[in-house]
């Protein structure tokens, strides 16, 4: 039997953690990446990584509460067993990263320090300055380099994944990739192919994501038959620094360390922000959400910032929407120690010192909660069966997805500092599954399959190179797509806009076929690579729009004003109670209708075929997400009573004596 070989696409946190663990389990790994793996987008993650820890445990925290915060923050749209398993692994993962040398900030005693992040009341987030993602990535990069030196890992950097190669039974038998320097094609036969290719922010033109986050690898798998889940759920990060080329992230840790969001009560107050007295400032998040304050979940903070600027007209500037994020009340020394990295970014790109002057920020597209649909096997205790070959497997056997490019962990909205955890967890957890899946009886000879696929890819490449006479500019088309997507499919969504945008994207996809390439050479041709990945954006853009269009409700990051459930208007207790009952009725009805994963399968022409799947909510029953809602207390009361009644009736249904 041949030595099992795994092909990992993408060298961010997920890809590297999988590679490290796979090598450790004795498998050979080919690691393909668009950029040297150390330059993957994970470096941009700033704030930290969540897990229950000794301190929070003593304040009443537990893995269960981490699970609860995650699914509540995600509006119950995720299957709960994988989230439970992830929360359970949290402490071990932090310990591991600590052992690998990640320079986590320390308490005076030398233990890891933690900060608080959005969507939780506990200080669950371990951090390394304001460059936690970079530090975690480097630690894994170093271990993988170690395995590379030992000959277990072979890196293929500056290589592009062009698509999985499936055999007649639909099983993935490897992939075809392209060298971005020599533009040569190569077959990578593998016992398993793992996609760890991150998000797709470039579909939105400018976002907080890196230039490699085109989503093209996922799109290629999707078009080969892999399902895409929850595509319409795109996280818009509340605080980013607007820029012409990129919207640079301002980490949630800025608020975690005490940063306050505010606007002057006078619209476009021309005064220096420092000279505006407290009474004339509106700390709107703290005012509207006294419990969580500036640390409400991201979708809510985003909508509130958006709202205060647009509805209330209180944007700090007139032509550019923005609010203040203020750190100036925190001692400089503390800021430098805990947030130095991100403050430097602000200073460097804006030319203003955020330690002295409040920052100006505005929401930006940040994370794809959706991604390739993946399977799991539930254990008896409600978590996952370790080593099950179903874990993280797409609907195409032999093709797996981990990290941001799977849809599994964050539901309708991701909590801050959970992404690093989900990436490392899914990578580590996948490895034993692959060890079990690989190395069975070798399948039929695949040479023919790969030859055919390489021919197909060469054909596509040649066709693109030949397009010199077209009248469309790929870069302009990309900008157009980005503007459209940002306008209709971010913070606020409306059916008429989504419907029109869907048609527009279909038209753009057709126009893409007329894109002229300005570089017809066959050496480091970035022009043709970009054009190719632009073409791959349309199917994903379509499924985002279609998913958003069909989902007539508000859930997490997906906000449709026409289907919002406003708070209670009544003040009279009896009336309020009645309204709360009604509210809960409609919530229940909505849950029954919409608490489902959106599954997109690629149809002809890249049009999605949308279906819905039930969600495993067996651990924590869905409940209304009430952060700061008017009348939330009354709703909560009614909901609790209903839950209790339901529980009693369940017990009553159990025959007497059965429990003893």
């Amino acid at each position, binding site marked *: 039997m041949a030595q099992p070989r795994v092909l990992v696409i993408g060298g961010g946190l997920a890809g590297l953690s999988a590679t490290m663990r796979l090598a450790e389990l004795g498998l050979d790994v080919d690691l393909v990446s668009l950029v040297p793996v150390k330059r993957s987008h994970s470096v941009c993650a700033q704030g930290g990584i969540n897990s229950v820890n000794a301190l929070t445990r003593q304040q009443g925290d537990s893995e269960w509460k981490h699970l609860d915060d995650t699914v509540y923050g995600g509006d119950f749209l995720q299957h709960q067993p994988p989230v439970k398993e992830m929360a359970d692994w949290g402490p071990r993962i932090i*310990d591991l990263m600590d052992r690998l040398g990640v320079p986590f900030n320390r308490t005076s005693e030398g233990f890891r320090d933690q900060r608080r992040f959005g969507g939780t009341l506990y200080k669950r987030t371990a951090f390394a300055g304001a460059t936690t993602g970079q530090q975690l990535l480097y630690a894994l990069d170093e271990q993988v380099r170690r395995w590379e030196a030992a000959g277990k890992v072979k890196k293929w950097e500056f290589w592009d994944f062009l698509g999985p190669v499936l055999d007649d039974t639909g099983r993935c038998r490897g992939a075809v990739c392209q060298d971005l320097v020599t533009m040569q094609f190569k077959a990578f036969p593998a016992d398993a192919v793992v996609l760890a290719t991150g998000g797709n922010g470039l579909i939105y033109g*400018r976002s907080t994501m890196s230039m490699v986050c085109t989503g093209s690898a996922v799109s290629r798998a999707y078009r080969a038959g892999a399902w895409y889940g929850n595509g319409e759920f795109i996280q818009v990060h509340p605080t980013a620094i607007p820029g012409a080329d990129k919207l640079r992230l301002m980490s949630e840790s800025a608020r975690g360390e005490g940063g306050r969001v505010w606007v002057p009560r006078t619209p476009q107050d021309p005064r220096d922000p420092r000279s505006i007295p407290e009474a004339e400032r509106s700390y709107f998040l703290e005012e509207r959400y006294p419990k969580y304050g500036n640390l409400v979940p991201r979708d809510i903070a985003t909508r509130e910032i958006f709202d205060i600027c647009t509805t209330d007209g209180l944007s700090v500037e007139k032509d550019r929407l923005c609010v203040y994020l203020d750190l100036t009340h925190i001692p400089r020394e503390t800021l430098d120690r805990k947030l130095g990295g991100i403050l430097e970014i602000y200073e460097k790109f804006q030319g203003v010192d955020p330690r002295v002057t409040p920052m100006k920020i505005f929401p930006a597209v940040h994370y794809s909660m959706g991604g390739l649909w993946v399977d799991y096997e539930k254990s008896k205790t409600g978590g996952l069966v370790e080593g099950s070959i179903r874990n993280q497997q797409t609907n195409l056997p032999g093709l797996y997805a981990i990290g941001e490019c799977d849809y599994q962990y964050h539901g309708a909205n991701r909590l801050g500092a959970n992404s690093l955890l989900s990436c490392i967890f899914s990578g580590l957890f996948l490895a034993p599954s692959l060890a079990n899946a690989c190395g069975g009886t070798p399948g039929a000879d695949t040479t023919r399959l790969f030859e055919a696929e390489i021919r197909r890819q060469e054909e596509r490449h040649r066709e693109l190179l030949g397009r010199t006479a077209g009248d469309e500019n790929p870069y302009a088309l990309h900008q157009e797509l980005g503007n459209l997507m940002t306008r209709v499919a971010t913070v606020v969504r409306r059916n008429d806009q989504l419907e029109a945008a869907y048609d527009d994207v279909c038209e753009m996809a057709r126009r893409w076929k007329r894109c002229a390439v300005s570089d017809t050479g066959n050496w480091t041709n970035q*022009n043709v690579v970009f054009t190719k990945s632009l073409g791959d954006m349309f199917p994903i853009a379509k499924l985002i729009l279609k998913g958003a269009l069909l989902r007539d409700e508000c859930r997490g990051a997906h906000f449709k004003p026409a289907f919002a459930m406003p708070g209670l208007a009544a003040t009279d207790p009896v009336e309020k109670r009645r309204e709360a009952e009604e509210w809960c009725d409609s919530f229940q009805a909505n849950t029954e209708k919409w608490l489902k994963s959106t599954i997109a399968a690629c149809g002809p022409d890249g049009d999605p075929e949308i279906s819905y799947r039930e969600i495993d909510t067996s651990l924590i029953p869905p409940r209304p997400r009430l952060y700061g809602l008017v009348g939330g207390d009354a709703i909560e009361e009614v909901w609790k009573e209903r839950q209790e009644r339901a529980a009693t009736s369940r017990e009553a249904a159990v025959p007497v004596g059965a429990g003893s």
Partner: protein
Amino acid sequence: MIKAMEAVADLVTAGADDAAHGGSSRVIRVRVLRQDVAGGESYFERFEVPYEPNMNVISVLQKIAARARSQDGRRVAPVAWDCSCLEEVCGSCTMLINGRTRMACSALVDSLVSTDGDEIELRPMSKFPVVRDLVVDRRRVFRGLEKVKAWVPVEGSYDLGPGPRISPEDQEDAYPLTECMSCGCCLEACPQYMKIETVRRDDESESDFEKRRKAAFDSGFVGAHAISQAMLFNSHPTGRMIADERLEALTAKGGIQMCGNAQNCVAVCPKHIPLTRSIARAGRAATVWAIKRLFDR
């Protein structure tokens, strides 16, 4: 409220459009040192892009790519360059901007023009083989990290409890070194770091070539970044368990002794990493280690 929010949804992108189309008719002239293939001839080509306030060199290059025309209106292939994060943490976009090594993403046009005049010159890094235009092959940077074993030699990745306790002082001492993004600025500016270019021979297998290239890399100066990483891991409680192996690598050919103390590395480091401190610490450690080895052997 909801109605109003719907009505102004378009405002989100308005800023972007303004930025893209607004501004005066002022242009930025750019001179790019181009090279079509590895080992090919290099030549300058001039471009013009419309000026926008607050633009950086990346957005200049993006505009050049979108336009794909030289200053005199000829259709030319877009300039190739490396970039990814655009916020100075990935280390991709190092190039020579007006003759000096730096990250293109954080090179703001306004300040370049105000200090160096209204033409911007872009050249590929000179210490690494050019792949195309501004794209260079920096594999040697990563080979340096491998050479000095820049990792914590953990015994597997299974759960064995937390890492060692570390005082906040030690963490703060080490943290700046961990920010090294392998951009190569320190190497480009180092007068002791010479370009090494190996070309595969026709009769050579991939793995033989790989071996020969590694040997060639190892014969040259390992560089400030690798020395600093070696010192980082030699200061980590677990990392230091193979401190001697790192010192052995640092005192091999192309090691620490090649440093000429020009201290350009620390001056050009975009992350302000105290590289010369690392180099001096490595010098001290190598001194002690060499003497000990002399007497203990």
